[in-house]
């Protein structure tokens, strides 16, 4: 695949000009760099300000997720999944739980599906707010970042009321979620929604007509559709290039099949298109949460299956069968034991298709948990993406890639 600038710009001159000896400049960007989100190193070969060749090196946050979870029980994996895409941890949790439930062959109650939908969309809102906010900050628009942090704080406070933590929430369990939504959720959501929409409107006013922002984003970092597909890109990045695919709509899971939402696409494939797609997706997520809350049925939040869910504490303390069930689910060697088999299950993460390939050998620990990280595919195309761009353009381009180190390096 082209990593050579002359393939992208056929008329590129190379080397000597007017008798002067021209040498390229090698610059190392990262891994500790504000715009590299801390964990990516790029060795750039520059001709003046233009990138002629880029060598992207990742792995600075390789925390051995896939090896670690082979020694944990199926439920103990969940805190590790929080730290994959740490700006939208709920999506990772729920995606993993969905995959294990497919292995087990259990169907969660309907209320759980709706709760999972609501929480995933809340997380996605946080993800997009962070991405656009950080991207704008790196271009100098600090106000946009602070406004979006205000909105993100509101959503995190709501998440804290539901799950108990702001970021690493471990809210999902195999067979359901930990606890039900609090009674005040609907009115708190109304407040969060007002914060999100107000800040979205303000930032749109600040950025959408801003000459500098437009000049730095439009036409910069163009990745046409065919190249996006070559690199296996999914999610907002590919939708901005025209790839109309969203796992929520096309292979529905949870309650996505029962709510109405649009999947925004653009065709330009540049930074501006990605910015617009993400802003629109926030609005659509708000829409999904509204519908899901309105349609949420009553019921239990964990499947009433003794192989999977812990029995209620009241039962455990009063009758022996529940106590034995409790023991069997917690003692090492016992616990949740999906039958031997494999499953590949995909959900729509903040960056695209988040896939889980689980292999079970019938015991209480997974044999293999493979995470298909959405931003890995996008990052594999970054070398081509920044070819021909100027050094300063790498910053907004990389910001719109939304690389999350925990997911990329696992």
């Amino acid at each position, binding site marked *: *695949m082209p990593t050579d600038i002359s393939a992208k710009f056929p008329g590129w001159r190379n080397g000597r000009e007017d008798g002067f000896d021209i040498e390229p400049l090698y610059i190392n960007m990262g891994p500790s760099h504000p715009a590299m989100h801390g964990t990516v190193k790029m060795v750039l070969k520059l001709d003046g300000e233009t990138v002629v060749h880029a060598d992207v090196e*990742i*792995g600075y946050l*390789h925390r*051995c997720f*896939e*090896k*670690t979870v*082979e*020694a944990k029980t199926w439920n103990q994996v969940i805190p590790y999944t929080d730290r994959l895409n740490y700006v939208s941890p709920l999506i990772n949790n729920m995606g993993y739980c969905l995959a294990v439930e*497919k*292995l087990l062959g259990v169907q969660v109650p309907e209320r759980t599906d709706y709760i999972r939908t609501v929480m995933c969309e809340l997380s996605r809102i946080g993800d997009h707010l962070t991405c656009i906010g950080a991207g704008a900050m790196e271009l100098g628009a600090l106000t946009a970042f602070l406004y979006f942090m205000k909105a993100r704080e509101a959503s995190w406070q709501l998440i804290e009321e539901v799950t108990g933590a702001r970021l690493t929430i471990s809210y999902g369990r195999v067979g359901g979620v930990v606890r039900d939504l609090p009674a005040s959720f609907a009115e708190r959501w109304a407040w969060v929604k007002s914060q999100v929409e107000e800040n979205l409107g303000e930032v749109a006013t600040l950025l959408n007509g801003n000459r500098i922002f437009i000049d730095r984003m439009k036409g910069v970092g163009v990745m046409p559709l065919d*190249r996006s*597909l*070559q*690199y*296996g890109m*999914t999610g907002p990045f590919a939708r901005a290039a025209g*790839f109309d*695919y969203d796992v929520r709509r*096309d*292979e529905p*899971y949870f309650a996505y099949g029962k709510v109405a939402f649009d999947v925004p696409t653009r065709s330009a494939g540049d930074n501006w298109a990605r910015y617009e797609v993400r802003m629109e997706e926030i609005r659509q997520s708000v829409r999904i949460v509204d519908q899901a809350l309105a349609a949420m049925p009553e019921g239990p939040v964990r499947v009433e299956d003794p192989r999977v869910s812990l029995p209620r504490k009241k039962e455990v303390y009063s009758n022996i069968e529940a106590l034995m069930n409790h023991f069997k689910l917690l003692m*090492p*060697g016992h616990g949740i034991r999906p039958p*031997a*088999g*494999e*499953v*590949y*299950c*995909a959900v729509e993460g903040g960056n695209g*298709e988040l*896939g889980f*390939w689980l*292999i079970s*050998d*019938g015991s209480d*620990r997974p*044999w*293999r948990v*493979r995470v*298909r990280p959405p931003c*890995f*595919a996008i*990052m*594999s*195309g970054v070398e*081509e993406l920044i070819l021909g761009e100027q050094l300063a353009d790498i910053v907004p381009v990389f910001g719109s890639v939304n690389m999350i180190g925990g997911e990329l*390096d*696992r």
Partner: protein
Amino acid sequence: MQPNSSPPLHDELTARFGDAVLAAESLGGREALVLRPSALLEAVRHLRGALGFDVLIDLCGADYSGYPGHQGDPLCVSYQLFSTATRRRAWLKVYLPLEGARVDSLCGEYGCANWYERETFDMYGVDFAGHPNLKRLLLYEEFKGHPLRKDYPIQKMQPLIPMRNAVDYEAVARARRSQSPDEAGGR
């Protein structure tokens, strides 16, 4: 996720490539086709060209050493393909031996295969013939061994700069394991 209509895919590949398809595993509602490693590149070219599977969603490895009921070569490389035209998915697997695991690279077909294969090489030690730049991706070059293989102890660190006062977790785990044989210490 809806299971893809795989029986036609299996038949299609068997009809065209004959003995390339060694088996079809039914996994979680979908069908994974096990191919002969030497036939992989041809099959993928056909899938990509004629059948329109133009997106490589995932390429990764798995180590089945010690998996109950597994016969044959333990190292597996798994490919997930997707077709934008028909919205179908395909799942291919090849099984390779631990020593001399080698399969053709898909770098000429898909751009992202470059990094996926580097990661699989890094973690499992699979050699991809024809890869332009097969070096480690997630770990550093001084690292010896392939960690996701079942025989690599998880806590065996290989620090680049000297660590002082670092707890040798591997020694602790070994000591604990020798005291109580049923202590869960991973495999």
